[in-house]
């Protein structure tokens, strides 16, 4: 009897009391906020118009429709733990490469395990939650960047681009926030200045000059700060991008001698100045050849990858290629 009861309740929506017997196509959805089971038609009905409290008695959590999902695991506690784990590892997403030694990495993993355990078993859940959110806010950019690099590694181009866009957005937000702060600060300063002017008896010009100076100082400091931040992010990007190349790229070029090559040139290549002044024909600083130097001004040539220094280098290389092969001597011994 109990078994039947249980089975029936399993297949019945507790809100509208429809059961599978009458409508065999019904599916149940859960929301990770409270993990209460509600049938799909109820979700449509209740949450279509926006967030609403959970219809279960004594629950009352505000739920959103887009958060509802199908239950994967039969056991709700497992379902919940998996969700929590997903979220926590999404925030604590460092890999072993990010640590100097295994011990640190293991401590990091242990920390993750603790958080997951606490959250899923409601032990100090508020405290843990608070810490988690704090950590996320503090390491937002780091996390995003890490995500991006991971997806790049997995050659998931679409995801990579998505992550990249996200990171850019975040950067922009940060910048905007700073600008906003600046504007507010300026307003504040203006107000201060006006107050000072109206109350103090000192020279008004002096006060204005002082205030201007202060403002300038601050804004330049701000600018520097912003630049530094941007530079840091760029660097992180850059290192992420080139790191892969450096690993795979062998710096030794291919030569017929298994990479062995002439590292000591028999000539010194003069440096080539960027501005080819035709009047400057002393030929002391660079090679003098009006014809070729003129070509270097031609954009069509340059666009095709033609470079003046390559011309000179090739000619000089060939000038010493075989200079000391004395055929009548060397061929005699063969």
């Amino acid at each position: 009897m109990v078994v039947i009861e249980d089975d029936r309740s399993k297949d019945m929506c507790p809100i509208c009391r429809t059961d599978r017997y009458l409508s065999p196509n019904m599916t149940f959805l859960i929301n990770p906020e409270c993990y209460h089971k509600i049938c799909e038609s109820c979700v449509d009905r209740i949450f279509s118009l926006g967030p609403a409290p959970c219809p279960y008695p004594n629950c009352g959590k505000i739920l959103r429709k887009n958060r509802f999902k199908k239950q994967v695991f039969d056991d709700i506690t497992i379902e919940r733990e998996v969700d929590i784990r997903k979220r926590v590892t999404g925030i604590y997403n460092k890999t072993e490469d990010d640590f100097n030694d295994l011990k640190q990495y293991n401590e990091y993993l242990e920390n993750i395990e603790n958080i997951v355990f606490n959250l899923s078993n409601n032990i100090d859940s508020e405290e843990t939650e608070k810490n988690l959110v704090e950590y996320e806010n503090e390491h937002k950019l780091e996390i995003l960047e890490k995500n991006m690099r991971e997806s790049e590694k997995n050659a998931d181009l679409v995801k990579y681009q998505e992550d990249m866009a996200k990171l850019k957005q975040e950067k922009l937000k940060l910048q905007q926030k700073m600008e906003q702060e600046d504007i507010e600060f300026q307003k504040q300063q203006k107000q201060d200045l006006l107050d000072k002017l109206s109350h103090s008896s000192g020279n008004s010009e002096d006060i204005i000059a002082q205030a201007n100076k202060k403002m300038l100082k601050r804004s330049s400091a701000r600018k520097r700060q912003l630049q530094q931040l941007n530079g840091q992010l760029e660097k992180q990007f850059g290192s992420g991008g080139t790191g892969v190349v450096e690993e795979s790229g062998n710096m030794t070029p291919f030569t017929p001698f298994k990479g062995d090559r002439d590292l000591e040139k028999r000539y010194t290549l003069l440096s080539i100045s960027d501005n080819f002044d035709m009047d400057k024909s002393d030929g002391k600083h660079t090679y003098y050849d009006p014809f070729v130097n003129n070509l270097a001004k031609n954009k069509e040539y340059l666009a095709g990858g033609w470079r003046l220094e390559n011309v000179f280098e090739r000619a000089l290389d060939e000038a010493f290629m075989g200079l000391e092969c004395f055929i009548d001597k060397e061929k005699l011994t063969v």
Partner: protein
Amino acid sequence: MTNDPVARSNITADDLYRRSTQFRVWSYTKDKLVETRENTNENGRALAIKKFNISFETFKKDNSEIFESHKEELDPHTLIDLITLDEEIKYLNFYAKNILEAAKYFKMSTQVKSTALSFFKKFYLLNSVMQYHPKNILYTCLFLAAKSENYFISIETFCKGLQKTEPKDILDLEFTVLQSLKFTLLVHHPFRPLYGFFLDFQQVLSDIKIDEIGELYDQAKNWLNNYALLSDVSFLFTPPQIALAAMYDTNPNITNSYLSKKFKKLDTIKEGEVNGQTDYDLIFRTIENCIETAKQLIESTREESTKIDRKCFFAINPDKLINKKLKKIKQGLQPQ
């Protein structure tokens, strides 16, 4: 790798050159070059004699009476007149000059022209004119050189510019020429090394006016066109050596000061005082040799060439030679 005469710890640009086909296949010592030419001439003669004998026998069979009555006039040994080595060299020189004219006509660059000449010379180093008549080989070489040096010209346009030449004449020979060249199409010319030295002179000899070096460069270029292209130097010397020879012959003063500044200095650093001058001396002697070889130009007059041309024609087509002689005898017989 087996060609490496000296075991070096470091690979140099010279070793790179030793890897090129120009060094491995197409570089000869003086004696070896002469020997190869002699062999080629000998083979050509043997081939021509064989051909002659075959046609002689067939004619003899058909006209046995005349061959009996005019034994002396129709003696195979006096009848056959083959090209000697000297004649062959002169003859080829004459045709090589035609390459220059044809290249000029098609407005081809120096690069194409030099490559065509190089192909032509290499081909006749291994084949005799008594085997392949130079006229079509010459055009085939030019056509091939144009292709290998990225100066594209269609076979129709090419043949239109030439008299009495069909596309088939050239295309049929193309593979033969390629085979003789052993499919080595990359030729290193002395022109770029010359330009390289022109640049390096500017660096090493900073006290000499640029105009002087520029003039030296232009004259040396002409020297290469006049002497190096037609002579044997490309078989005997490397491109940088030829380039230096051209510079030395046009202006010994400047070139010598460059050489001593560059190589005497290098050697004292590299090998110490004992054999401090070996490199310089060797280069210097090689350059002098090169100039000497380049200047030994064979002059061939038009009359001489036409004479050899007739010989060549008959060597390739002995039928016509015997036929002509027979006709002459028959004509002599008629009035009697």
